């Protein structure tokens, strides 16, 4: 009697999505001026889960030495979108429907931070995402957020995103 290896129940990313994620990672690093300027480094790219580290940049400061809360929204929106892609079975364009962010503490420019995001589910062509931004050294919360994305938008359009 042979013993079969234990079933691997860990979620796998669809190969097409994985290839797209690699392209997105390269875009983050090299090609896209906004996302490239965020200095994001991927720590985890799983099915419906992502984690990135970044140093909060001085160029997005609020004038008092802290990073502007608006910058945190840029980070959350960017990484929420990427996280939705990791949860999809096939590539489809997406659009943010809405976003919410709670800012728990100020963070000085230069602080090393980690942003963990989860796609909680996709139902009726709507993806639900949540995430938290923490200080890398002591894990204290900087911001938490959640968002909803339309999956399968028609791409470039003249009017509705939905």
């Amino acid at each position: 009697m042979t013993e079969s290896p234990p079933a691997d129940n860990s979620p796998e990313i669809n190969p097409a999505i994985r290839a797209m994620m690699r392209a997105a990672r390269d875009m983050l690093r090299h090609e896209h001026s906004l996302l490239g300027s965020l200095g994001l480094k991927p720590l985890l790219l799983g099915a419906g889960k992502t984690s990135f580290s970044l140093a909060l940049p001085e160029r997005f400061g609020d004038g008092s030495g802290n990073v502007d809360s608006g910058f945190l929204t840029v980070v959350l929106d960017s990484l929420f979108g990427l996280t939705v892609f990791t949860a999809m079975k096939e590539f489809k364009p997406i659009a943010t429907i809405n976003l919410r962010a709670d800012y728990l503490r100020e963070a000085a420019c230069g602080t090393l931070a980690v942003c963990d995001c989860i796609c909680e589910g996709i139902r009726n062509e709507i993806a639900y995402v949540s995430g938290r931004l923490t200080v890398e050294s002591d894990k204290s919360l900087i911001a938490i957020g959640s968002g909803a994305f339309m999956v399968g938008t028609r791409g470039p359009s003249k009017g509705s995103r939905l």
Partner: protein
Amino acid sequence: MSAPFDLSRIAALAASPMGQWLGFTAVLDGDGAVYRLSFSEEHIGNPMIRALHGGVIAAFLETAMRADLTARLETTAAVSVVNMAIDYLASSRAEDMQGRVRLLRLGRRVAFLEATGWQQAENAPVAVGRACLRIA
């Protein structure tokens, strides 16, 4: 606590690194202001679509709400954002965005505001945001 609307109070906010990155400006309009995001290529979200990044729109409306509250306060109290929520109503274009802010409620320690952003026409909003701001 409320005072005559004074745009000179938002100079520091507009001159901050984030304010500069957004190209954030304001002009008086009636008893309030119209705020502007000056488009830059760095504000693009998806290069294939060439629309403003959703986070950039959120940051602009959030900055507009902070500016608006600051301009309305009679003290030089610090204003910070407790939380904000934004709904994206329509596709944006790779061009300037304007915004107007409505003060919903001004309390002693917090204020609630709503901001509407548009590009082609004010009656065709691209996004609407609401925020709770801390006054300290």
